């Protein structure tokens, strides 16, 4: 187990800068997730940590040792690939022990290690099969087994679950989390699936265009997104963005919501809105903050009940998503399935802005921090 420091790493291909100065430091045993849309540089960063690609500038430290220019094999890391990259000509057993063999581990010790890993991942019965004879989920386990067998200082997972079907993906996700809790290893995990990121990570680094937009715990990122991009990327269904006008009132600036009737919404951090009076800002409100009227919330500050027009309803079982519209913008609300809402109806909904966030409409910069 080791800590990992990525110190101002820059990667250029010719003129294009793929990584624009990445700074991330994680403790030993931490589970870091790199998340972002495709092309954001997360896989390049992963390859740079692995040593499969050389960085242009900056340093990478594993266990306080500078490995920026070290060979992949000398970094003591293991990687699980999206395609699993199992050696097709070797049996599962040979696949798992190949890394040990390359490191000149004696045969008896290799056998013991293969047995240990196979039992941990419940693949003992598959040891003599070839990868082609395995299902997707089984291949995934073998790929993890290959990484675990070497007991490296650092594990890299490159979108390991994206080739599995939905059900298996959820199962393996839990499995990986259990494994991390049991072994306490340092893991860097790349994904574009924000649910994976939320559920697995100790800390998440949200990336875009070769820059880290925000680095923080899942809850920090969910509740306190640094900018419009992070806010829109994390969470499913996504955060609602509502352009609202800031109007001055006796009790300070408020936000004008233009639904069925004009409603003024309060906002926790009034001070930041002062300079925006008369202008339009982007209000960010998670769907679960717009609900059917709940008696226990009545009278709380930052809670306003107003009427909306139902456009579409999507029952999801546990709750029902109600789609409405404020001017041009679609808004998702999360209501109790028993709450009557039919398309076309005007119904009462409760807006809770205690956790609302505000962004500059042009730059996407967070205003209330």
């Amino acid at each position, binding site marked *: 187990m080791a800590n990992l420091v990525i110190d101002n790493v820059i990667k250029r291909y010719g003129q294009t800068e793929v990584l624009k100065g990445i700074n991330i430091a994680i403790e030993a045993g931490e589970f870091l997730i790199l998340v972002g849309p495709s092309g954001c540089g997360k896989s390049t960063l992963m*390859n740079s940590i692995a040593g499969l690609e050389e960085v242009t500038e900056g340093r990478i430290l594993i266990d306080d040792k500078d490995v920026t220019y070290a060979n992949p094999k000398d970094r003591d890391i293991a990687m699980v690939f999206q395609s699993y990259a199992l*050696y097709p000509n070797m049996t599962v057993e040979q696949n798992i022990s190949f890394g040990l063999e390359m490191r000149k581990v004696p045969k008896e010790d290799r056998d013991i290690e293969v047995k240990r890993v196979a039992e941990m991942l419940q693949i003992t019965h598959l040891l003599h099969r070839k990868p082609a004879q395995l299902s997707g989920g089984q291949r995934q386990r073998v790929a993890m087994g290959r990484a675990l067998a070497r007991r490296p200082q650092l594990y890299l997972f490159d979108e390991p679950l994206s080739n599995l079907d939905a059900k298996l993906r959820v199962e393996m996700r839990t499995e990986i989390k259990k494994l991390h809790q049991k072994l306490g290893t340092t893991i860097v995990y790349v994904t574009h699936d924000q649910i994976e990121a939320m559920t697995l990570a100790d800390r998440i680094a949200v990336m875009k265009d070769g820059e880290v937009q925000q680095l923080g715990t899942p809850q920090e990122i969910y509740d306190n997104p640094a900018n419009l991009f992070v806010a829109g990327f994390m969470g499913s269904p996504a955060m609602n963005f509502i352009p609202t006008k800031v109007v001055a009132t006796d009790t300070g600036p408020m936000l004008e919501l233009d639904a069925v009737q004009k409603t003024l919404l309060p906002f926790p951090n009034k001070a930041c809105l002062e300079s925006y009076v008369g202008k339009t800002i982007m209000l960010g409100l998670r769907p679960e903050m717009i609900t059917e009227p709940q008696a226990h919330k009545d009278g709380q500050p930052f809670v306003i009940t107003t009427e909306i027009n139902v456009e579409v309803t999507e029952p999801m079982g546990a709750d029902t998503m109600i789609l409405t519209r404020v001017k041009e913008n679609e808004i998702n609300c999360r209501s109790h399935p028993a709450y009557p809402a039919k398309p076309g109806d005007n119904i009462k909904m409760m807006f809770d802005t205690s956790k609302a966030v505000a962004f500059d409409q042009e730059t996407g910069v967070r205003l209330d921090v």
Partner: protein
Amino acid sequence: MSNIKAIRRKTTAIERLLRVALYLVLISVAAIYLLPFIVMLITSLKDVEEIRTGTLLSLPASLHFDSWSKAWSSACTGSTCDGISPFFLNSFQIVIPAVIISTVLGAINGYVISMWKFRGSDLFFAALLIGCFIPFQVILLPMARTLGWLGIANTTTGLVFVHVVYGVAFTTLFFRNFYQSVPGELVKAARLDGAGFFTIFYRIILPISTPIIVVTVIWQFTQIWNDFLFGVAFSGFDTQPVTVALNNLVNTSFGGKEYNVDMAAAIMAALPTLIVYVLAGKYFVRGLTAGAVKG
């Protein structure tokens, strides 16, 4: 039973007629394609007198195998009269090392070009590709100079060298295209596991290359075995391949032309490539289409 009968597809008279026509066309095309070989075979089994009567397509009145033994061991090729058997050995001495060396080099080249890309590797590949389009005649003179300069003119080694140089462009192309479909993550995984350049090649890449190795070996074997131009240009008197010997045999005659001996010799000279195709043809087709479908 009645059910099965009821759902059977009805074939109309026209459909049946079309089917017959189809088979007739196929059979006649196959016959046209096979005709030269059939003529060669039956001519080789006739005696000289029977050939002279000009009945090209008629079956031999009686079977004569002496033309085969003569072609093999006592027909005259130029000034020697040992048949074509000694030249078979020459051909094998050229073909076997040339096929092995060009295949191995092609495999390594393809491996590097697809999986260890370096600055200019695409340019390198493009340059190699041009090698596939250079006509044989163009390199005859420069190659003769080069062989002389290397001191291997008129030797088996020289011919092996020529065939390797000329073949590497093709073998590299084959292997490169095959390795394009092999996921690069295999190499990455092996590097992280601690394997080096040749270990990865030998332990991981070569074992999955069987289809393309078969294709390359067949291709190179056929090309080199059938080569006449390089053989006639660069071989010495005692290093002539069988194709050159066949030409000499046909052109050497005392008195009448012995067509039966010529035909027997020609069939024998073609036999090795035929055998290779029959034994490995299945893998050849499979290898050519490999990569298109993922295992």
